């Protein structure tokens, strides 16, 4: 709690500095949140190149919208809302094409060693299972489980009611449990 609160306060301070023209503050915000946006977009089924483009677009929008940000508003959910709205617009332009598997070249660059191959395989299995969920359920689970957003925050990010958010979570986790049971995962 204290860590989250101090992080949020730090975000507000960085945004205030950036609004005042401090470019270094923008760099710090990028380092802090670009990995998070990449994880969310990759788990949402986008390929490496699309993810990189949308992360860039998200921060470009952050730059353009910096005057709109109000202290205490929560930069993290703010930024995720931007990214997911950009993703929605991107998917409409792209149309329904096959979703991307995890890029194995990215794993090489990250130095995923041979002895981690089993872990990488299991990670890919989780990724594949997430892609089988409907978009709404997947978004809730990615934000809730992997990025630790609360349900009220997720509800605001996605623009759906709190009850609907919890229903999506309930159904999504239920489907994942069935997926696990059908494939005999231990």
């Amino acid at each position, binding site marked *: 709690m204290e860590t989250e609160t101090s992080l949020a306060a730090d975000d507000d301070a960085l945004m205030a500095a950036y609004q005042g023209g401090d470019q270094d503050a923008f760099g710090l915000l990028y380092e802090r949140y670009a990995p998070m946006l990449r994880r969310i977009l990759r788990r949402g089924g986008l390929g490496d190149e699309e993810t990189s483009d949308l992360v860039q677009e998200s921060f470009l929008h952050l*730059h353009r919208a910096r005057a709109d940000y109000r202290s205490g508003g929560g930069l993290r959910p703010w930024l995720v809302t931007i990214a997911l709205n950009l993703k929605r617009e991107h998917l409409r332009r792209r149309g329904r094409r096959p979703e991307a598997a995890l890029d194995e070249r990215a794993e090489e660059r990250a130095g995923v060693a041979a002895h981690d191959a089993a872990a990488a395989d299991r990670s890919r299995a989780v990724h594949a299972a997430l892609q089988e969920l409907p978009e709404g359920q997947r978004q809730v689970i990615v934000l809730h489980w992997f990025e630790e957003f609360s349900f009220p925050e997720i509800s605001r990010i996605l623009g759906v009611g709190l009850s609907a958010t919890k229903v999506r979570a309930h159904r999504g986790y239920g489907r994942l449990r069935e997926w696990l049971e059908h494939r005999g995962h231990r």
Partner: protein
Amino acid sequence: MTTGDTAGRQPPDEVDARVGQWLDEGRALDAAAGLDAGRDQLLARLAAERGIGAWARSRTTAVRRGSWAVLLVVGAVAVSKRPDLAHYPLSYLAPAALAFAGLALWAALWALRPLHRPAPHRLQVGLLSAGLAVAPLVFALLPEAYGAAGASSPVPPEALPTAWECFIFGTLAGAPFAAVGWLLDRGGLVAGGRLLLMSLAAAAVGNLLLLLHCPNTDPVHLLAGHASVMVPPLGVAAFVAAWRRRAQRR
């Protein structure tokens, strides 16, 4: 970390430990996701954010939307030179003007919405677009448009503009509103929905300005010269949609 159902890592009751443990295995490749491939490109794009467009886009949403609204009012007042204004039935003029202005403003506000707010549903955008497209048609077909006003108009027939003149006027008069909308939009109106909404908003403004300027009350003129101003944005939207569908099939 907060508690209860607001806790980040506390799953709903129906998630057993096995599912949670298995999901956590999905974090193994998070390091790969952290690699930074686009930072330099982003910095280059930020450095290129200069000029009137960059300045306009970086205003607050309230200022951007308010600027477009002010432009609408200024345009309407500047163009309100209808020679038969004193004779034209207010019971028709006021609702028509309010409808065109209201729908145009609503569409522009949605087109200029900030991305840190949830987007309107596609159905809502569709309904608003349909309303914009149909409103000039409806008002052109109302008998009040050319009934009493037409009979008592002080404007001589030879002074009435022809339909194509009004179509050109309405289209050109609405174009600056689309241009300003493009300047103010943070995404450059690239997304289809935003482009359609802003185009229709500009065309609705064109209809409003025609209503406040043109004294011709002939029903054919109103359809062919005024309502037809809505056709170009719909045509552009249909073309872009067809082009995208074709690109997606490749």
